[in-house]
């Protein structure tokens, strides 16, 4: 084309980024790569191919790790860990060097990423690699500050980290940076489609002076991931990927004592109100759903438009989509690159073929031949449509309409997922009213897909649990210092030959929805003192009682909206009323356990103190305004988890108060299952609740066999978290059953440890990050 012809047509032409340097790097590596274990690259083993999805060309041959390789990597990590954990300021310098080296090799990383993954060079260059460097800088600072700012916390140990193919290097940074900053060592497995930048990262680890064994990178498919997940030498698993695999990991690690964080799928709503800047909201969708070919866990994939503007909005959106340029990812003027692999392309095609007919499919630009999928809008769907519910993980936007803000929230939350959400309106009142109501870990006001190392990222529901980024992200890589001791099973006192009845028969019922309720099964159990006195009967709760308690707890939603001051007042009042009956409770404790009067009194005093402590905390667990690099704020808001089921330890009163107080202080509703051996102090306690203005359903108390109730509680889809401090071995069953809705769990694994209040509060809250860019 001559200059004159271009002058007349004003085409963009092509602007390809050179792949020469990246290809030369692969050639230097012999196009065959081993793995990074103990600070060295291993010899290549049984190989598989790394392909460029845009062309199908083989880029390199990579090694499928064996059991022995994973063993070696875990052993190297273990060997390096204690020394690495010693000096935070020394770690800070290494992380700083990593950040600098990422910047020095920025273009090499970007081009290699685009070759391997198919994402547009603009994104790998301007977004992925920039965020990677930022993540290492930020966490270098966290290593520097750890001793001063996180006293009493220590590294978990060896972390197994399994990352996806959509942001290969960025997810590596999100995993590796906080882990090693806190003194952990890691064994990381990149996705088999996209391992190349991880191998380049291995090289810069050597240049940065990362000690041998601190970072280990093994390659291969899901089988290797499974080896890491099930490896007994691993203390923590961090996984980002699909909900299906996350669920399998939850099941596989159940009862192993491994810590776990999961960052999974999503079907994030993108809500546009009629008073939004419509053109900007449409442009925002380009970043929400066409960014990285829509292969983004937090993609704004579900468009909800207020009915009155829907027609105009969709017309403008389709016109905008017509300007998207799809093709060679190395071209600097390309908006949509290649799908990561033909397998993923087929998945997208199959889903649209199956569900597209429920609405209208718009594809204003055609995809080139090969592993490409055109930007797609499926409009006119209903919440019940297949494509409104299923995560597609491709450049496919689905849409429906709503009438009112309340309906927008209802439709937005009508999903199994809870990762992210966008809200578009020019009305600050509306935006700040809606954001807290959305079930999501991240909310963007008038924006989409904003990320920063200082701002927490992560989901709720089946989008997983745990946060990455910010101070909250460090919770996933640290634990309270100090040793845990084995839980001693409490002694159940058996019926003596001759029964002595203590006083008038009092019926200890279950406490559900603010009412005393007989157990659905109609059975109860006699409770004896150590000396064989019949203290009374406790109800034997069954699965139906759990069902009823969850229903009661779920309908007490008002508690979450009560002001912190109001919740504090209620907790203080509970403490006050308990105090008035201190002697009675001390006596009960003494009869139940056979302890001394002094110890019984001490337990009551501790319970009152605990209630006062969490009453104090109600209005003091501040959120944060994160200094993200933009004009705006990212608010970290502490929200209640929801309905929490807890199995109490065998301190008759404290076991109950310790779980109830922090949970309800933060606005949760609780179903507490009292100590199986000593349930009667807990059932006495409901009378205290009754007299203390605790709204019905906020605290529900059950008694009965933990082993049986744990399965039902952990499997219940409408319970958001389950805790266990039980002396019965139920940790494994809770973690396994929790995989159903991927609820959060906090279990003792048969060990007892004193947690600081901050840990209790962290378990009782979800951090929601609300991004509010502003400017007139």
């Amino acid at each position, binding site marked *: *084309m001559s200059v004159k012809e271009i002058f007349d047509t004003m*085409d963009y032409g092509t602007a390809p980024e050179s792949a020469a340097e990246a290809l030369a790097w692969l050639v230097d590596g012999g196009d065959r790569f081993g793995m990074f274990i103990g600070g060295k690259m291993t010899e290549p083993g049984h190989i598989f191919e790394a392909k460029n999805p845009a062309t199908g060309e083989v880029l390199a041959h990579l090694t499928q790790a064996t059991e022995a390789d994973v063993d070696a990597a875990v052993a190297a990590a273990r060997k390096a860990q204690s020394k690495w954990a010693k000096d935070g300021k020394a770690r800070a310098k290494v992380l700083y060097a990593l950040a600098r080296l990422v910047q020095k090799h920025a273009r090499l990383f970007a081009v290699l990423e685009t070759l391997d993954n198919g994402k547009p060079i603009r994104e790998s260059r301007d977004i992925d690699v920039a965020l990677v460097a930022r993540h290492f800088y930020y966490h270098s600072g966290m290593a520097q500050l750890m001793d001063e700012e996180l006293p009493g916390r220590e590294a978990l140990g060896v972390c197994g980290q399994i990352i996806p193919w959509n942001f290969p290097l960025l997810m590596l940074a999100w995993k590796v940076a906080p882990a090693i900053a806190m003194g952990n060592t890691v064994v990381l497995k990149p996705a088999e489609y996209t391992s190349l930048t991880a191998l380049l990262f291995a090289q810069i680890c050597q240049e940065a002076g990362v000690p041998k064994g601190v970072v280990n990178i093994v390659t291969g498919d899901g089988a290797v991931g499974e080896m890491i997940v099930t490896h007994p030498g691993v203390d923590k698993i961090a996984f980002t990927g699909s909900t299906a695999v996350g669920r399998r990991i939850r099941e596989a690690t159940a009862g192993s004592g491994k810590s776990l964080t999961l960052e999974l799928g999503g079907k994030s709503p993108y809500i546009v109100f009629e008073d939004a800047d419509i053109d900007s909201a449409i442009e925002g969708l380009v970043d929400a759903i066409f960014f990285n070919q829509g292969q983004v866990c937090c993609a704004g994939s579900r468009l909800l438009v207020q009915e009155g503007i829907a027609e105009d909005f969709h017309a403008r959106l389709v016109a905008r989509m017509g300007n998207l340029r799809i093709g060679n990812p190395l071209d600097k003027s390309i908006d949509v690159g290649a799908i990561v692999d033909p397998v993923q392309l087929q998945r997208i095609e199959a889903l649209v073929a199956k569900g597209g007919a429920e609405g209208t499919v718009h594809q204003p630009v055609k995809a080139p031949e090969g592993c490409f999928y055109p930007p797609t809008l499926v409009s006119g769907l209903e919440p019940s449509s297949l494509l409104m519910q299923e995560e597609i993980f491709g450049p496919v936007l689905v849409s429906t309409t709503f009438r009112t803000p309340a309906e927008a929230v209802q439709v937005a939350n009508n999903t199994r997922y809870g990762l992210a959400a966008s809200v578009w309106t020019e009305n600050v009142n509306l935006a700040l009213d809606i954001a807290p109501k959305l079930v999501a870990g991240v909310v963007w006001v008038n924006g989409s897909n904003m990320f920063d190392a200082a701002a927490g990222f992560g989901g709720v529901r089946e989008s997983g649990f745990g946060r990455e980024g910010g101070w909250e992200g460090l919770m996933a890589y640290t634990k309270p210092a100090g040793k845990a001791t084995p839980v001693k099973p409490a002694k159940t006192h058996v019926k003596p030959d001759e029964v002595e009845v203590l006083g008038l028969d009092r019926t200890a019922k279950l406490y559900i929805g603010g009412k005393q309720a007989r157990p659905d099964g109609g059975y109860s159990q006699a409770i004896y003192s150590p000396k064989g006195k019949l203290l009374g009967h406790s109800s034997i709760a069954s699965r139906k009682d759990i069902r009823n308690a969850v229903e009661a707890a779920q309908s007490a939603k008002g508690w979450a909206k009560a002001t912190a001051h109001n919740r504090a007042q209620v907790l203080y009042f509970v403490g006050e009323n308990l105090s008035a009956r201190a002697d009675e409770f001390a006596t009960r404790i003494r009869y139940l356990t056979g302890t001394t009067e002094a110890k019984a009194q001490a337990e009551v005093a501790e319970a009152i103190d605990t209630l006062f402590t969490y009453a104090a905390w109600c209005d003091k667990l501040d959120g944060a305004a994160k200094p993200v690099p933009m004009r705006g704020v990212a608010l970290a808001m502490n929200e209640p988890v929801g309905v929490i089921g807890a199995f109490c330890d065998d301190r008759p009163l404290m076991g109950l108060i310790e779980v109830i107080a922090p949970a309800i202080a933060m606005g949760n509703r609780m179903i507490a299952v009292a100590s199986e051996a000593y349930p009667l102090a807990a059932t006495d306690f409901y009378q205290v609740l009754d007299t203390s203005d605790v709204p019905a359903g906020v605290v529900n108390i059950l008694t009965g066999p933990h082993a049986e109730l744990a399965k039902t509680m952990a499997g219940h889809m409408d319970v958001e978290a389950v805790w266990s401090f039980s002396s019965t071995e139920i940790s494994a069953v809770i973690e396994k059953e929790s995989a159903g809705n991927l609820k959060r769990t906090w279990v003792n694994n048969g060990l007892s440890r004193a947690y600081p209040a901050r840990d209790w509060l962290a378990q009782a809250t979800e951090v929601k990050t609300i991004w509010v860019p502003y*400017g007139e």
Partner: protein
Amino acid sequence: MSTPDMTAHATGLVTEKAQLPQVHEPRNPGMELDLDIVERQRVNTSAVERRCATLPGRRSVKKDHQAAWLLKAITMIDLTTLAGDDTAGRVRRLCAKAAHPVRADLLDALGMPAITTGAVCVYHDMVETAVEALDGTGIPVAAVSTGFPAGLSPYHLRVKEIEESVKAGAKEIDIVISRRHVLTGNWQALYDEMREFRATCGEAHVKAILATGELGSLRNVAKASQVCMMAGADFIKTSTGKESVNATLPVSLVMLRAIRDYYTRTGYRIGYKPAGGISKAKDALVYLSLIKEELGDHWLSPHLFRFGASSLLGDIERQLEHHVTGQYSASWRHAIG
């Protein structure tokens, strides 16, 4: 102040269109002031800024394409001198440059026929000189008018100034709006003023300078754009070049979206002229890609897009020489204007 009769005015324009065969666009007749349209303007500043910040990274024009785009940019420049010390000699030199903006050997090497800038833009007193100097080149003379740059001279004199410039041969009139009408939300007054300016221009095309740096918010820019288009502006233009903040990408994006909205609603294409602060070839390319993305190729024409710039041309010439020779250029190798 008088508001011209709408119907008669609109009828007049149809005739006008026929008399200007070189103009490919049907001329915007304007419409009645619709305050609903004004009131529903929404601009989210952060989102607009994000779009603008990422655009240069999203579109890249290289090699022959870059040369062609830069040549196109030259044809869209309103080569401008608006200084108190302008003289006839200075204006004639500028006009000569407008007629021969690029060295002939560079054009030959690029395989391009002769090109000219879009127009020459001067104060009223220089219009006659410029018209004479440009005789036979086909380059129109644009006059800044209506008490440019502040627009605070007596209203009847502002109208009169348009008349005089048109009489002196200006084919384009760059008027300044009364910023106070925007700042006080007096949309009717803004509309009436613009309507009369437009009527007074007659066959000359009118560019409405919004002085966006003085309007306080992007939302006001959107509202003022809509009102001026409804009142019959042929072009909307960012600034006089005399405000402390002149053309910016965010302001441009807002005005382009307003133009698109007006086109969707009425079918009339309004032109856009960013002015002041665009002095680099690279910036010009970003502006052109913004136009292409937001409005489409149709707007990449001097009929619908102009740069108000005085030093941009020099940088483009250097880039073109670099493209032809592979060597970085120097300003003294290109004729001054």
